């Protein structure tokens, strides 16, 4: 998998979706992103392997940006910046 890191990112809210199967993490992330302001960052933790495809696809559809995906063994930590839409 692609692993990128981002430094100096201010996380606005953290959502732990450990143990939840896709598309539940994507759905919950969408609900939280809807209430964030443009430019704010959601930290999403997911353990479902499907999240590696579904989260970037969701971000693209919504106009948000995945700043980084960090593989932490069984968990994946996404930093998602809310777009202007």
């Amino acid at each position, binding site marked *: 998998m692609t692993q990128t890191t981002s430094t100096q990112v201010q996380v606005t809210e953290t959502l732990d979706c450990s*143990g*939840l*199967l*896709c*598309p*539940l993490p*994507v*759905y919950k992330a969408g609900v939280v992103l809807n209430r964030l302001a443009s430019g704010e960052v959601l930290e999403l933790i997911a353990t479902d392997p*499907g999240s590696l495809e579904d989260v970037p696809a969701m971000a693209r559809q919504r106009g948000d940006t995945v700043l980084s995906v960090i593989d932490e063994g069984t968990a994946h930590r996404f930093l998602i910046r809310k777009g202007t839409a």
Partner: protein
Amino acid sequence: MTIEAPSQLPTDRHLRRYTDIRAMLPDVDQPTPLVRVGGFAAPEFELFLKLEWLNPFGSIKDRAAAYMLQGLGETGALDGKELVEASSGNTAIALAALAALAGTRLTVTIPDGVPEEKKVLLRMLGAEVWETPDDLCPVDNPRDGAIALARSLAASEGGQRYLMTNQYENEHNVRAHYETTGPEIWRQTEGRIRYFFAGFGTCGTITGVGRFLKEQDPSIEVVAIEPQPGHRLPGLKSFAEAKEPGILDRSVIDHVIRVDDEPAYATTKRLFREQGLIVGPSTGAIVHAAVEFGVDRSGVAVGVSPDGGQKYTSYFADLLGDEGLPAF
């Protein structure tokens, strides 16, 4: 299924007096009405609508919801759990009412674009409503986001919290129509039905009724109505964009007619204005298809009218525009 409280006036179906609303659920001795639709087709093609919106919770889905809950109750699978279901509204409304009566919590994953009226009714009944974009899972479930979300909820928390009734895969959905809707139609038409029309949705109706009618007379023609991709006909499904339900049995279907939104809504408006039938848009789609099919055919035909028009007033407002408002 019916639980009656002690009463000096017990349930008497002949008098239409009930001590519990669940006793109003239909069966062959208490069928929903068949009403003739006059003037839409040649007199030789005798078209009736089965008015399923006169069920206690307002739609044909009352039957499936009651059977599915009864099935879960019998196996004890629901004990201590909450229900989750993916629904465009009608199944959810019936489930929510029945769950409320049973003291069970219900979460509904509902597709984007379902009329606000349905979502508010569900919340009034105490259900939790998760509005779900169809394209929630672009990778695996391009047009079935609500179903995928309900499945993931049922599988989460070790499967200990939620139980999915799963109307798309639940044989009790088919059984409800095989044991009630089908026999009702057979009896109400005195065995003279030649053609049966129902929409593609969960496919419980077309499979259950179709199977029953074919067993009575294999020459009865069963016609499925399918909307176009991207349609705005709640309750109906286009299998060009959605996955076929596991309970669909195509062997009982003789014809599939595809209907566009525009004639479906135009026919819905005609049913309001010419027949006094306050129906939902899927009924318009079914009647439009039946009338086209009935050209050059004769005999008794029955179409399902799945629900009433009250839940679609916001859609109808779009359809009407300025029509019916003062012109000055």
